[in-house]
């Protein structure tokens, strides 16, 4: 067969959102790949310049439909750095708990999509079923299921509901059993191993040079996790380890995310044990000082960063978002070239694309 370009997207089952992957194929082998993004561009950064600081919190929820809590938390943290606000310790603990619950929910959605990409619809339904429990937990805290609008500049909106600890522990116990089941479904399947091992190799050096972060880079054996290396909130007080895998392939990335879900369970348990009493929110000034600030967090997909310039008014002069997937997408050609068309869903599924934050 002659060489030809295939457009996978913007409307394609593999894409998980609106983006276009152009691949040049010779028969079934990929010779070249070119990601095209920008279909979901909403002018988010520009929109923030016309809004007062608290108004941007619900907007930052809309950055990623998979893990909106991380982004509103990141935004609040950036503005707290800008204004020099100290957040009460209880609020930090609550933030860590909801963040980790959000991480599990996000990873579950990734696992569901990953199973579907490989042709197993059963896992999709199973994972969505378990994600429901975590959404219920988050709903009991925040009142919403997808875009929470929960963190506030200088704390969180409301305290944990009564009995939250009990419900949370019960869900985690149930979930850890189910996680064993999923590992059986995936790792016990020879076809899954055939489809993921030695596929989509991303060497650690390539990953670091291209700015890849998060589980994708940890799957290449690099020990980097901002929760460990640039601890924000109260992660340094909690007992947990970062998860890496040395294989550099799709299987390694899958493994890292599965381990992270367990680790998140451990973090939540530990945080629930150590959570102190006290206030959950402090007063913050309305206007920001004339200076710049930034904050970065470990999003479920990689390193998220926000950079803000305050100009003395109640609106940001400039708010810049560094999205993990926007950077990771530049490593897609390296991961794809040389493999088969059938590997495209497996490789792109292991990256966990989220277009809301990529195109902003």
């Amino acid at each position, binding site marked *: 067969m002659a060489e030809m370009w*295939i457009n996978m997207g913007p409307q394609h089952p593999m894409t998980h959102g609106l983006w276009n992957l152009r691949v040049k194929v010779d028969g*079934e082998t990929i010779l070249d790949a070119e990601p095209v993004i920008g279909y979901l561009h909403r002018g988010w950064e520009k929109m923030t310049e016309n809004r007062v600081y608290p108004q941007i919190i619900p907007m930052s929820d809309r950055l990623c439909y998979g893990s909106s809590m991380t982004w509103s938390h990141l935004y609040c943290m950036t503005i707290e750095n800008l204004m020099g606000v100290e957040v009460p310790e209880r609020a930090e603990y609550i933030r860590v708990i909801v963040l980790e619950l959000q991480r599990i929910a996000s990873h579950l959605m990734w696992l569901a999509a990953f199973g579907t*990409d490989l042709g*197993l619809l059963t896992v999709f339904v199973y994972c969505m079923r378990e994600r429901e429990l975590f959404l219920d937990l988050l709903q009991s805290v925040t009142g919403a299921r997808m875009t929470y609008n929960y963190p506030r500049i200088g704390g969180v909106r409301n305290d944990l509901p009564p009995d939250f600890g009990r419900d949370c522990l019960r869900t985690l116990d149930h979930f850890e059993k189910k996680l064993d089941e999923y590992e059986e*479904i995936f790792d016990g*399947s020879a076809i899954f191993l*055939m489809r993921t091992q030695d596929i989509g190799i991303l060497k650690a050096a390539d990953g670091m040079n291209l700015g890849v972060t998060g589980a994708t880079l940890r799957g290449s054996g690099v020990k980097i996790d901002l929760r460990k290396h640039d601890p924000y909130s109260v992660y340094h007080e909690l007992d947990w380890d970062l998860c890496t895998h040395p294989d550099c392939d799709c299987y390694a990335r899958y493994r890292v995310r599965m381990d992270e879900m367990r680790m998140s369970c451990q973090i939540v348990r530990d945080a629930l044990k150590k959570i102190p009493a006290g206030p959950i929110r402090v007063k913050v000034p309305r206007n920001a000082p004339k200076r710049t600030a930034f904050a970065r967090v470990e999003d479920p997909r990689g390193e998220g960063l926000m950079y803000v310039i305050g100009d003395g008014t109640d609106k940001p002069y400039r708010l810049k978002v560094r999205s993990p997937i926007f950077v990771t997408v530049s490593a897609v050609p390296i991961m794809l070239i040389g493999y088969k068309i059938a590997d495209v869903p497996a490789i792109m599924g292991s990256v966990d694309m989220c277009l809301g934050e990529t195109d902003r």
Partner: protein
Amino acid sequence: MDLYQFTEGIVSWLVGIVNWILNWVGFHGLAGWLGSPDIIKFLTLLGESIVLLAIGFIVAITMIWQERKTLGRLMDRRGAMVVGPAGYFQNIADGLKTLLKEYIIPEKADKTAYNWAPVIMIGSSILLLVAIPLSGRFYMSDLNAGLLFIFAVFSITPFAILMGGWASNNKYSLIGGMRSAAQLISYEIPLLLSMVGVVLLSGSLNIGDIVNAQAESTWFIIPQLIGFIIFMVAIVAEVERIPFDLPEAEAELVEGWWTEYGGMRFGLLMLAEYFRGYAGAAVAVLLFLGGWSGPFLPPEIWFLIKVFIVFFILIWLRGSLMRVRVDQILNIGWKRLLPLAMVNLVIAVVFKTLGWF
């Protein structure tokens, strides 16, 4: 009473009524021509094919329903449950929906080939039903080489798929068609080889003889277990279901070679897929699971029960396995199944030489 006598009775009765009317009106010559044995035989064969098609259609619809319900339960949901008893009529509702849809032909498609590909597909799938008996008395034609006929018709399909994939003028369709051709051709060989063991043991290519041979000795799944496993793997590939549904791998190829087909053409292709699923499961039952033999119930019922059990295995595979890659599927076919089929053949020869069958 077999299918022929049954249909002949109905046809004679209908012709009798028509003849009475014709005689009453005064067309005596026409009535005599209609009552002649040749015409009665022709009408009987026509009636037989209608009965078989209706049975095939009902079985296919039931299989879709079975798949929906079983897959739903495997996935911890309920499947179709609103239309009709336990959602049974959902498929008929879906069929009506596809009938009502606009039929779009891509502008740059090769229209002749594009229109004929589903016709060949559904036609060859229905042709399969001719050679598949429901029991020793309920069959359309008792071919001497019935098994050979079934597999010959089975292998028409890659032609239709390749044609449809090419004519759609779509890159996904083209790749899907190519994959399909490669897959079907390479799985035909282990499929036929696994069948040869059974043919050796029973000493016949006639399906009735094979079933009778099993009734006399034992089900061929016992001496030919490896053959049965190879047959099942190969038949999954032949009817293009997960884990071997590469030609319509929806994650990478959207819907493979079906991508450009819409409306009732799509519905017919879907139906053809289940006809083929029925044919595959039926052949597995006939060759390995004793065909229609079984106590108490009528043989036709036994046959259908076994077919649905075999089809359940296919659904189970779909609910628990992922899709393999195109180079891996060919590796499995040529490097694993083919040597295994040879081993199976040797086992059959040994059993035959020892005189156990």
